[in-house]
């Protein structure tokens, strides 16, 4: 029995090894759009191998329920994989919640199976797994709810909020430490699940929609770390690797997002975010803006050589990406060079704008990152801003009193003409006034993004004699 047992165990380990290689290759191939789909295939093969290998596990006596669970999971997964591209941020948040849910459940099951024979280090990792898992679970559900707009998008804040939150987390950690020292204290375990569940809710409450890219990345990182911790608990190196990859991916994305919003990492870690209040409201003098009609705008666009379009979350809300594609076509046909300037935090998750524009069939080599396009604005005839606000606010460069001072922005104000499609003069999400709108070279195009772009396209095609 012993040799046979060891033999199948080795086969499983080798299968896991191959799966690990495939997972790493999968991420490596994500570096460029050309190879990225190979990455998905590598990941899929690795996943199938790993699941098949696990079924060889000697301890498994009951296969029926495994297959039932796999089938139900697939039944839920398919519709989640077929959502609209505009719903990708909330879908991603939801899948972080599912991942964390799985990790928390397995952690709890392992605790009750093994207690009180749990060595201190193992118990510490198990506590970390459960705490991170449960706070990521409710936190991600909250984030998904805010993104789906079933929960209020506005930050909810109250006095002493950070204190309450850190206090809750502190209680959970103390419970964890107690369990490490007294692994038999079963009654404490529910505390370690429930408190972080509450913490997850409170953690996301003060966060507004514009901060979602950072928060989603952070939750991504937590989900990865909790999975890696589970890898230690169940003794799976493959899971440790996958969790470490996911954790570092989320971490890198959060750092990129933080830099793009000029926030420090600790500022985000300790939940003080989303609290950028409109402090610059005072001293409002009446300043004049120049507005233009679709006809005038299309005339200027048609006469331009170089146009840069700056999309923002407003474009996603208005579902204007397909109309923007028509505008791109109409201008390109006239020989206008059209490119898109993508700010890292435009939208609700990292890379959100790229996906929406790719969905509208805009070639990806026309999508240019902030650092690569900022130098080109002085040679740009028209910068057309669709549904973006704070990422174009020149106050971030010049006005030290502005709450977004220091945030890297797209230098649209250096273009010869700036056009802004906007519903009204109401300030953007963060409630910060944008001096860009009062520049002499700026034309405000008031209206809904989708219908305004549509009328510009209409004018452009009407003008071709």
């Amino acid at each position, binding site marked *: 029995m012993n040799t046979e047992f060891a033999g199948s165990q080795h086969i499983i380990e080798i299968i896991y090894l191959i799966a690990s290689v495939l997972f790493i290759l999968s991420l490596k191939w994500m570096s460029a759009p050309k190879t990225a789909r190979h990455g998905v295939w590598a990941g899929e093969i690795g996943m199938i191998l790993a699941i098949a290998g696990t079924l060889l596990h000697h301890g498994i006596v009951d296969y029926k329920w495994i297959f039932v*669970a796999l089938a139900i999971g697939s039944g839920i997964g398919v519709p989640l994989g*077929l959502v609209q*591209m505009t719903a990708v941020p909330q*879908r991603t948040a939801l899948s972080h919640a599912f991942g964390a849910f*799985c990790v928390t459940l397995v952690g709890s099951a392992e605790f009750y*199976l093994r207690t009180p024979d749990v060595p201190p280090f193992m118990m510490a990792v198990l506590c970390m797994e459960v705490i991170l898992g449960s706070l990521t679970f409710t936190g991600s559900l909250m984030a998904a709810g805010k993104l789906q707009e079933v929960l209020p998008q506005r930050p909810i804040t109250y006095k002493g909020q950070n204190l309450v939150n850190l206090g809750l987390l502190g209680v959970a950690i103390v419970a964890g430490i107690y369990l490490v020292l007294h692994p038999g204290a079963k009654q404490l375990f529910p505390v370690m699940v429930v408190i972080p569940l509450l913490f997850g809710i409170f953690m996301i409450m003060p966060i507004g929609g514009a901060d979602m890219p950072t928060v989603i990345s952070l939750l991504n990182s937590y989900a990865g770390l909790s999975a890696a911790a589970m890898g230690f608990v169940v003794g799976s190196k493959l899971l440790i690797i996958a969790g470490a990859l996911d954790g570092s991916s989320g971490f890198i994305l959060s750092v990129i997002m933080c830099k793009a919003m000029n926030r420090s990492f600790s500022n985000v870690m300790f939940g003080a975010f989303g609290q950028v209040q409109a402090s610059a409201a005072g001293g409002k003098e009446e300043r004049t803006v120049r507005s233009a009609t679709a006809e005038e705008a299309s005339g200027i666009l048609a006469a331009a050589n170089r146009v840069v379009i700056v999309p923002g979350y407003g474009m996603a809300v208005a579902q204007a990406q397909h109309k923007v594609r028509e505008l791109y076509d109409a201008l390109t046909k006239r020989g206008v060079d059209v490119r898109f300037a993508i700010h890292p935090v435009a939208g609700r998750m990292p890379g*959100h704008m790229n996906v929406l524009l790719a969905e509208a069939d805009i070639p990806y080599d026309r999508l240019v990152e902030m650092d690569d396009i900022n130098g080109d604005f002085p040679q740009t005839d028209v910068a057309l801003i669709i549904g973006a606000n704070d990422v174009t606010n020149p106050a971030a460069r010049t006005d030290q009193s502005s709450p977004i001072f220091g945030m890297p922005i797209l230098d649209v104000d250096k273009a010869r003409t700036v056009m802004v499609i906007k519903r009204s003069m109401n300030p953007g999400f963060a409630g910060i006034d944008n001096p860009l709108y009062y520049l002499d070279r700026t034309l405000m195009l008031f209206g809904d993004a989708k219908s305004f772009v549509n009328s510009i396209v209409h004018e452009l095609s009407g003008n071709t004699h």
Partner: protein
Amino acid sequence: MGSALIDGLFVFMLAGFIGFEVIKRVSPLLHTPLMSLTNALDAIAVVGAIVLVGEHKSQLSFILGFLAVVAATSNVVGGFLITDRMLKMFKSSRPAKS
């Protein structure tokens, strides 16, 4: 026992560094599919849950494991599906060489 944990820490450390180096090179263009892909890979946690269900050591571990397999499988299937759908949409304006 102790050495298995130390081994695990080595694996974690190395995988963390590899992840850091590999993901740093991912084009910002693909950050959204990257997140959905890592999410799908992360759902490899399903292997731990499968063992719980299969071993059926206690009623509680069986039920928790069952729910965990469902949750993780939905991430595997949904995650790979949407990542592939997104990546299919990214096209270059330069004609692809065949």
